[in-house]
């Protein structure tokens, strides 16, 4: 697949309302700058994120996917992110096993006060994915644009 001109990575981040989403708001309040490529989906808790959402995001054309929540021990719902941790440690490995580059799916703990960490993480992840180029793996667009004939 040829790289489109003016291609910009599309990154989706599932963020918990109490920590990372708040941290992102704080980054805004402090006028911190990070790339426009990151789009947040607000969920109550990182444990709300069904690993199937990740597959869907890749399928529909995201170049990078993130799941962010409170640090373990700080979950607003006490134990949610312990489940998150288990689920995505496994999912991440399964994705990599199926050929997804490790950088394309990442999970991070970012608290409500870690605006700088939020900015740095998003900047860094965007750069990594820009480096990797557009993702075609798992993407249905690949089919719509001709499928196997592309190869």
């Amino acid at each position, binding site marked *: 697949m040829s790289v489109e001109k003016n291609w910009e990575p*599309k990154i*989706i981040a599932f963020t918990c309302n109490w920590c990372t989403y708040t941290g992102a708001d704080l*980054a805004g309040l402090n006028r911190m700058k990070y790339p*426009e490529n990151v789009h947040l*989906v607000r969920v*109550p*808790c990182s444990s709300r994120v069904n690993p199937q959402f990740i597959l869907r995001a890749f399928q529909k054309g995201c170049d990078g996917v993130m799941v962010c929540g409170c640090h373990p021990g700080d979950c607003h719902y006490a*134990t949610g992110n312990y489940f998150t941790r288990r689920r995505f440690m496994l999912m991440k490995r399964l994705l990599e096993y199926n050929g997804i580059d490790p950088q394309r799916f990442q999970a991070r703990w970012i608290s409500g006060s870690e605006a700088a960490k939020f900015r740095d993480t998003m900047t860094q992840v965007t750069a990594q994915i820009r480096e990797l180029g557009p993702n075609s793996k798992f993407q249905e667009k690949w089919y719509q644009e001709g499928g196997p004939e592309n190869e």
Partner: protein
Amino acid sequence: MSRTGVIICHCGTNIASMVDVEKVAEEIGKIPGVVYSVTNKYTCSEPGQQMIKDAIEEHSLDRIVIGACTPRMHETTFRKMLKGTKINPYMLEIANLREQCAWVHTDKEKATEKAISLVRMSVAKVGSNKPLFTSFIPIHKKALVIGGGIAGIQAALDIADAGHEVTLVEREPSIGGKMVMLDKTFPTLDCSACISTPKMVDVSAHPNITLKTSCEVEAVTGYVGNFEVTIRQKARYVNHDICTGCGLCETKCPSKISDEFNQGIGERKAIYKLFPQAVPAKPVIDAQNCRKLNGSAKCGVCQIVCPLQCIDFEDKDQLITETYGAIVVATGYELIDWTKLYGEYGSGRYADVISGLQFERLVNASGPTEGHILRPSDQKEPKDVVIVKCVGSRDEKKGKSYCSRACCMYGAKHAHQILEKIPGSNVYIFYMDVRTPGKGYEEFYNRTREDGATYIRGRVAKIYKEGDKLICTGEDTLIGKPVTVKADMVILETAMVPARGVEEIVSKLGISMDGDHWVQEAHPKLRPVETQTAGIFLAGTCQGPKDIPDTVAQASAAAVKVCGVFSKEQMETSPMISRVNEEKCCGCEFCVKCCPYSAIAMKEIDGREGNRKIKRMVATVNSGLCQGCGACTAACRTGAIDLLGYTNDQILKEVDALCL
């Protein structure tokens, strides 16, 4: 087809300076189903809100998307606004164009592109929104306090003073707990009984407080506002309705038993009051040790001497069930049983090696020695006393890994009391660290050293007897040499551990404990008196070791929390909670395992299999308990359990919309 209205807010220039809001409105207006797409200078202002209300009427909108500041700022504002319209308040989504777009980006073109994406995601999501309705739970304005120590007493009094009914349950025959056993309290050295017994009397006299001693919680069901609690009133064998507490029975009773209130120093009778100032000031019979009740003799002397015929040997346990709106757990602590753990300190073989609580009784004017410090073995006044701190605390191998927090201070207090009461005495305190974080605490520690206490930094390795002396060996780690003290008496300042039976209470209440069995608070910093279960609060040492000031403070805090619950007639529950699709649910119970609030239970429903009617199990969510985290939804492989407001469908739509 849905009719979505979209309002893109300028937020003054906050958004408009970095995002081409007009372009956003224009682009969004092209999405099928969006019938109204405009911009507004200040959407959250009164005119802004009015504009939305008007648009709803004018364009027959059935859902709204607002591109503005973070939803954490004005989501509630706009939901309130929608309450006055024909649209359900939950038919609203907010795209975060300020904090997560305009403020953090520098390229206007790209920021505008991103803003379009964000609003498109919200438009996609709102398309799947469903009207949600808050439900109301009636609040039963009566509180249950479990445990009648100083924490329970304080909490009960505070709640009662606020005008609510309280039931205080205590398993012992009297309230008072550990505090009433103490002689003096640090650092002010006021008499413990003098400050705690008036509170006990207040409890018994308070019109809003029902005191239930010799009672235990048997079962708890329900949820905040509506806990059904069954309480077991243990047989007392004395009719407290008639008894005047004259005490005649007690003097005549022939059975003598080791006195637990005095920590085994001294004896009590089988019919007894826990201590002289007990509340209620009426005796009970200890069935295990009563000659008549345990069948070892005919006896019945108490029955014969009682002038009012209060003794009832036929008395039975009774179960009482009542409804409470909130529960305060104040089950307290006890001291670790060092005799089972520390062979090097003699495993309890030496009578003069005693615990701190035993010393409190020895030095207490109402104790077995009437306040004279006499060593238990021969009733002689000790001249050289060794105090050993951290026995069972900070000892991962034999005891507990944590610091018990109060021992440094009461160790200093014991030293002070000995030096004051026994002229010419010497006190040696073996310590590892002296921890005095509290008002006036460091000063008190200094004073104890001025009094003449010798502090030796090191743990005692062994205590043994030679003649009538107890030889204590330790290392003074500051000089790096082993030291030996010949003592007449040794006081071990032992670790606090949760009161016996806390495990049962915790499981009955459906709350959790930490690894050391202290009751788990909802959040260590921000919700220290709450539990994971709404309506159940914590007071005092059941949550972790603490001293009296902290205990009382936490008890009052718990009382305020209870009053908070009681401040409304009904409680509104968030409608954004999990819901089970019973048709799809296969009953695997996987969601139950993931729920931090025990909000999911299994229930039996009618079903069909082929042409047979059968009963099958499905999950069901308790709306009083569910807090809407959604952990269950990601655990459900079928997708039978879903989180209202953040449904699988809604989130997938958002994902899809981003990728258009």
